[in-house]
Each structure stands twice: as structure tokens, then as C-alpha cells.
């Protein structure tokens, strides 16, 4: 099964479970968790079921397109369900079956893996899912987001698309994966991988990036004061990505690093709180809608 069909299959599967199918969010980010569709929507009492593909940028993992296992940008298929359904493990396993993975022919295990992202004030408990010893999915019950306790709890399922595809297509090199008929990952992403790696490690301008970080940070705070959560959050994401490039570039000393992470965490905490307050002002509209539906 090529990657395109994998994505279509997963979309079909989760759409049938009542998930809104979203498109990738258009600001650079390191993981699907950082999309506002996850980070913000996991906050507060409103129900939320969503699935989307998230291109995830990890500047430090760039290898000029030469390493068979590492990518500057990989793809995650992200599912968020709030509150977490009782049969979520079964729903997930059914998605594997839909991908042609018959559990009876493999060894599928849920191995403890607790997830923590201190720079976003996030913590969760769950597993990494092993398929014949390979980690193919992160499965997490969010306990805290942006420093706020999650109530109700969301479950996050993150499939590593390339990982899973390399298993399904039995390829040793990620660039040999078939995206769709006649197109490999190399055809589509080979050049960008090389260029982004060169940019990250060689030609990027740390001074400019340091400047940008401060500008983005300031703007994020300013928009939060205005109660404009989403524009503010875009700038938080930009801060985070800028920091990641600087970090990969080796431009941030260990001492400074702690400082930058603390600045990102402050932003994340503040934005989480602001988002909650703004939704509260609106009367948690999705919650109200669902309750009305239930009464009818």
C-alpha cells in the first residue's frame, strides 16, 4: 500500500468514527501535537474529535537526504478524541487491520511510554505501540496541557507515517517509499530535505533568527493581551520553530537553552489559559451544542 492510500484509509477509518477530517495547519511545527487542533482543543470541557496529517519539521534530524532513517520533515497522522472513548484501543487496532495489518500474523504490543513536553507544559500517560518490535504509534491520554489539568481527558493517537510505510512496503530506505504510483518520497522530498538541511546547519543566519524569536515572542504576548488566541498561537509556533533551527545550528549554549525553553513554556501556559478564558466567555459553544443534541 502506498503512502497516499494509507492516508486515505486512515482518513476513511477515523471519519467513520466521527472525527472531523482536517488539513494540516499552515504554520511550521515540530509535531502534530502542536497544531492548534490538538494543543488548544485539548483544553477545556468541549468535546472534540479530529484527524489530520501533520507535516512535522525537526531541523536537528535533517541529514541532507542521505540517512535512510532520518528526515528533516516527516509526516504524522494525528487523531484526537475528547473525551477518550471506552473502546479507543479497539478503534485503533481496527485501523491497523484496515491498513492490511492482520494482528494474528504479527506481534502487536502496547508498551508503556509516558509523554512529557515541559516546553509546552504538557504531560500524558500511555504507550508506544509495537509492531513486531517497531514503534509505529504513540498512544497518549493527555493529563495536562499548557499547565492545565485536562478535563475531560483527550486521547491522542499519532502514527508515524513513514515508519509504518517502511514496514508495510518493506523498504529499508525511507526515500524509496512509494508515495503514490510512480512517485517516491525521494521524488517529492529529496531536494527539500537537502536544502533544508543545508539551510539549518550552514546558511541560516543565527542573528536574524535570534531577532525573529524576540519579535515573534513579543507579538504573541501582545496579541494575547488583546484576547486573540489564534494569531498569538501562530507566533508561539513560529517561536518554537525558530528555536529549533537555532538549536540544531548549535547557536544556543546549554545555559541559554534553558532560558529559551522557559520562554516557550511561559508562552504556552499563558496561551492555554487565555484560550480557556475566551472559550468560557463564549459559553463553551461546542459543549452546549452537544448537550442540546442529547436532549432532543
Amino acid at each position, binding site marked *: 500500500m502506498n503512502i497516499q492510500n494509507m492516508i486515505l484509509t486512515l482518513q476513511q477509518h477515523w471519519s467513520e468514527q466521527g472525527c472531523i477530517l482536517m488539513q494540516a495547519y499552515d504554520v511550521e511545527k515540530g509535531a502534530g501535537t502542536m497544531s492548534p487542533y490538538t494543543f488548544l482543543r485539548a483544553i477545556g470541557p468541549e468535546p472534540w474529535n479530529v484527524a489530520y496529517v501533520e507535516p512535522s519539521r525537526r531541523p536537528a534530524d535533517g541529514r541532507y537526504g542521505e540517512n*535512510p*532513517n532520518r528526515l528533516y520533515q516527516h509526516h504524522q497522522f494525528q487523531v484526537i478524541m475528547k473525551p*477518550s472513548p471506552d473502546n479507543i484501543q479497539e478503534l485503533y487496532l481496527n485501523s491497523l487491520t484496515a491498513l492490511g495489518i492482520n494482528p494474528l500474523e504479527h506481534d*502487536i504490543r502496547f508498551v508503556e511510554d509516558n509523554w512529557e513536553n515541559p516546553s509546552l507544559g504538557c504531560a500524558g*500517560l500511555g504507550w508506544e505501540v509495537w509492531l*513486531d518490535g*517497531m514503534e509505529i504509534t504513540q498512544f497518549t491520554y493527555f493529563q495536562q496541557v499548557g499547565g492545565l489539568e*485536562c478535563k475531560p481527558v483527550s*486521547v491522542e493517537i499519532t502514527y508515524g507515517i513513514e515508519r509504518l510505510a517502511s514496514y508495510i512496503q518493506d523498504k529499508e530506505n525511507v526515500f524509496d517509499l512509494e508515495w503514490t504510483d510512480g512517485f517516491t518520497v525521494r521524488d517529492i522530498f529529496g531536494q527539500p530535505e537537502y536544502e533544508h538541511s543545508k539551510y539549518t546547519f550552514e546558511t541560516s543566519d543565527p542573528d536574524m533568527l535570534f531577532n525573529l524569536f524576540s519579535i515573534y515572542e513579543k507579538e504573541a504576548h501582545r496579541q494575547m493581551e488583546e484576547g486573540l488566541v489564534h494569531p498569538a498561537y501562530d507566533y508561539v509556533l513560529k517561536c518554537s520553530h525558530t528555536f529549533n533551527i537555532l538549536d540544531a545550528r548549535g547557536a544556543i549554549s546549554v545555559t541559554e537553552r534553558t532560558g529559551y525553553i522557559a520562554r516557550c513554556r511561559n508562552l504556552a501556559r499563558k496561551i492555554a489559559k487565555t484560550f480557556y478564558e475566551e472559550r468560557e466567555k463564549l459559553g463553551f459553544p461546542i459543549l452546549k451544542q452537544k448537550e442540546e443534541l442529547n436532549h432532543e
Partner: protein
Amino acid sequence: MSKRDMLLEVGLEEMPARYVTSSVDQLAQKIEAWLESHGINYSEVNLFSTPRRLGVHVREMDEQQEDSFEEAKGPARKIAVTETGDWSKAAIGFSRGQGMAPEDIYFKEIKGVEYAHVKKYIKGQRTADLLPELESIITGLNFPKNMRWANEELRYIRPIKWLVAMFGQEIIPISITGVSSGTVTYGHRFLGGKIELTNPDDYESQLLSQYVLADSERRKQAILSQIEKLEEEMDWVITVEAELLEEVTNLVEYPTALYGRFEEEFLEIPEEVLITSMKEHQRYFPVKSKEGTLLPYFVTVRNGDHNHLETVAKGNEKVLRARLADAAFFYKEDQKMPIEKALVKLNSIVYHEEIGTLSEKISRVRNLTNQLTGMLQLNQESQKAADRAAEISKFDLVTQMVYEFPELQGFMGQKYALQKGESSLVAQAINEHYMPRNAEDATPESDAGASLAIADKLDTIVSFFSIGSTPTGSQDPYALRRQASGIIQILLKKAWNINFEETVDLAVSLIGGAGIAKRDTLEIKSDLISFFKLRIKHYLQEQGTSHDIIEAVLGGPIGAVPELIKRSNILEAYKRKEGFKSSIEALSRVANIAGKAETPGEINPDLFENEYERQLYNKYLASAAKVQGTIPAKTYFEELISLESFISNYFEHTMVMAEDRELRTNRLSQMAKLAAIIEGFAKVNAIIVK
């Protein structure tokens, strides 16, 4: 009395493997405690646990709680009995209130007053009526890490999926997070199905038919015998570490061991790297030949049956190949980096925000190491090796391999140092300076490694104490206790009699010089000494030393650790010998009375009134000369024992607390001087003599 079996099973989403055993043990203990406190007899408790279930089967439980008596207290006698000797209204009311008659009243004295009492007979209830209380036992389990899910308030190890609660064939009604108890359990996630239990006794066999080996001990044995079979068939030796076996046992419900292989070229990577990669990342068992060389195979345990084993093996091989390719890449890259370049990188690595960079730590440790090797008068070769090893002790921390496998720190340092042309002594010391890495680990073999290990650990402990980060209760994030115990073990193993207080002073002054200390130096030192005394106490307790002797040897300064331990062993051995009581009593008498001396001064022999005073004085002078400097504990102790007769004679003929002030002061001074010698060995008056 008729009896029934009880079965309780909590079905869960996969629990963390490392908590399964302790969780089911806890459940069983709490159930047993409940049964005992409720007077319900039973014959036996069987435990079952898998990643998805905690099960307890109690056999032959009484259907009826034991009958019991309860005593109720009523009015005092003078109120209970009227002047005419009849029962008062109050007494009649009391007995009726308890459902009894006045004839049942008897009197019992409480704090000198007699009160009316009745003994109430309480009929045991039906066990079945009490069992719903088990709900709070299930919800009350404590786990190291808890979570919430969906809209539930309960914090638990993982979400609860089903509950089996049966007393015989009867359902015990329990409901937790919307899950109600019943008689239905589930087999293996993929191979098994739903099971309708009719009887607690069918539990294990029914589960087995649905591909669940519910008894974890049997599961473990099954894995072991499958591995042994592979060893036999393939002519292999597979070392099965208890910890990994335990984890693997609790990752599967129906184990099937299988093997895979990897490319022989990966064998060029150091063996420890391969083993770590297989064990830590993949939970594989490494395979060796009968001669002990690592072979390009691994054994893994699948959660399933024998079908499609080739697919599973192939998948696992693919994963391992990618991991080993990474390791090979790191190994190759690391070799390109000169040690000096790595050292420069350490300049910018913060060890701890308040303590500074790794480079700063290294320079303190190097300084301390050199002072130690000087104090210990190690040979030139060792001194030189220790110095160089200290200088480059942490260079491997910036290698990619250690970044990927932190547990290989020191080990990679040794490997790489040798490749870069360092002497084998230096390389060895780099690895050894982390030893002992855990309670079971050995101490460093080389003198260079041992002195560096002491310096590094001591610097760490002193650093954290200086910024006020000391271990409290269960909180010891920097493992300072383990490191302190490590220092003690090394000193003992090496029989290094360096003065402990002086060594701590050295480390404290180095930290002070670096401007790190946030607290008063004297306070830091006294905290450190108490901390180390606790570790020594712990060591002595472990080897079974009586607590009074521990208190006695730790009553004064630590001094030389090996000597301190010897003193404790001598006292412990002497405890069982004749004469122990009288010698200790004599010595204690001196120590006790010496405490009354306000300002002990010099002894004036002209003030002696009897020959015994003089004899003791002469003996004291001789002893004082003997115990000067470091003398073997045994000699010291023999010297103390020889004091006994002099002391006894002295006390028989001399009144220390004389009326005359001058006389008294002189005698107390003599006692104080003598006590100093005695207590230089141990606080003898802490020793309990019977």
C-alpha cells in the same frame, strides 16, 4: 460451615510491565487484611496477573462471618446501683439500650472507678453481604503513576475495562467508573474471545483455552523453558537476566520465544553497545556461543502463538538492523573526534545551573583527586594515571554513542581513550570512576580509578549539599545516597584509612573556592558528616551490627572508615565474650563521670591521695602514648580492656566528687583525659550491657 471460592479480576488496558507484579501483590494483601479484620476464614489465596488483568482467587472462604462479642461501657457503679442495692433507672436504661437485661451487667474498673459493662454478642453477617466493600479496596490501590481518562475522576494505573467479582456463582455487585462487575472475562486480545465464567475455579483453565497464561510464575517458566529449548537446539548460551525476564513476562499474555539474526558486520561494534541496544531498546535476549562470544542472533518473546513466526522475526530484524546501523554510524563518527576537542565542548555543558559547567566540575575533581592520591601516597604511575583520567573523565559525554546510550558512559570513555592512545591504566580509571554503578556493582579495581571515583562522587555530594539540595525522605534525585555508599564501599575495599573529616573539608573548600556554596560552610560540613554517618549506619545495619554498637562507634568523628568498621566488628565480637559487661561498665563509668567536668585542666599528680590514683595516672600516660596516631583497632581495644582493673581499683578507693574543690577538679580532669582516650574508640556508654 459451608464455604465458597471468591474470584476478583480487574481487567485493564495494558499496564506498565514494571508495575504488574507489585500491583497484584498489593491487591491480594489488602484483600487478605480485609478478610482477617472481618473474621472471615479462608484456606488459600492465588494470584494471577498479566498486562491486562489483576486477579485474586480466594479459596474456601466462609459463607458466614465469625460471631463476635463487643463490650459496651455504661454508668459508674454509684449511679448504676441505688442506695438500696437495686439497679438504678440509668443502669436499666443502659442495658436495654444495648439490647440486654440488667442481669447481664458486670463491673469493671477503669482508672480507679467501677463502671457498668455488658458484653454484646454480635452475630456474624453473611459474607456475601459484606463483599461489596471490596470495591473500595480495588479503587484504593496505590500505583507509582496514576492517570485519568474520559470524564472519570478516578486516578488509576490504566483505564478499567471489565470487572469479574464472584462469590461462588453469585456476582458481588461492584461498580467502578461505569464498569459493573459480572462473570465475564476476556481472553488474549487477538487469539482469544469472551469467556463466561460459571465458577471461580474455572478461571485459570478457561483463560488458558483463550490463550492467556494468567499465572505469571507459570508464564515466566514457560518463557524460560522455551529459551532453554532454543539454547539446546542451536547450541547457544542465552543469559537471562531476572529483571529483563520479569519485564518480558509482564509484556505478554501468551508467550512464544523466537529468534532473529543480524548482519555479522555489526559485530565490529563493541559488544556492550550491541547488548544494550538489544536489551534496553528492544527487550531482546542476546545470544552467545558456548565459548562466550556474542553471536549475530537475538531472542525475543512474542505475545502470541506459533503462527507466522517468520513474519514477526523478519519485522524485528528490520528494526534491529536500523538501530545497529545508527550505532555503527555513531561509533565511526565518535572515533573522528579528538579528546581535546571533546573537552572544549564540555565548557559549554551545564552540569547544574547553580553548580556550573562540566569543565568546572572536572577541574575541581582533578584537584581533589591529586590531593587524595598524595594523601594515600600512591605510586607515581597511579598518581599520574589518576590525574590524566580525571582530566578526561567526562570526555565521552559529548560522543554520539553516549548521547544515544547514556548507560554506556565511562564504558565508551574507556574504549575510545584506548583507541586515542591513552594508557590502559587511564582508560580503565575512566570507566571505573562511575563504579559502583549500583548496589550490586563492584568497586574500582585500580588505585587510580578508586581515588578518582571517590573524588568525583564526593564533589557531586558536596556540590549539591552546598546549594541546599540534600536528599529528604524518598527524594534523592541525584542519587547522592548511592554515591555516598559507593565512597564507603571503595574505602573499605581498598582499606584506605584517610581521615574522612579532613577529606570532606578539602572538597568543601574547593566548592567554596568556586563560589558555589549558598550556605554556611560549618553547616554544610556538619550536614555532610551526619549524612555520611547515616550511610555508614546503613552499611553496619546491613551486616547485622547491633544498634547500640553502631551508635557507639558513630558517636564521635568518623575518622578512618575502615578502622571505624573494624572497631564496630571488634565490639560486636567481644559482646559475646566473657568480661564484656565488666569492661564496658568500667569504661562507661569513666565516660559518664567525665561529663561532669566543667573545665577539665591539666592533672596535678601532687594532689593524689592514694596509690590507685597514681596507678591509674601512670596507666593513662602509657595508654595515651600508645593510641597516638593511627593504630590498629585491635591494639587500641586491647589497650582499653587493660584499663579495667586500674579503673575498678580507682573507683573503689577514690571519691571523684570530693568536697574539696581543688581535689574534685583534679580528679574530674583525670577522668576527662581518660574518657577522651576511651571515646576515641567508641562512645562506650551507648553500649547496652545486660
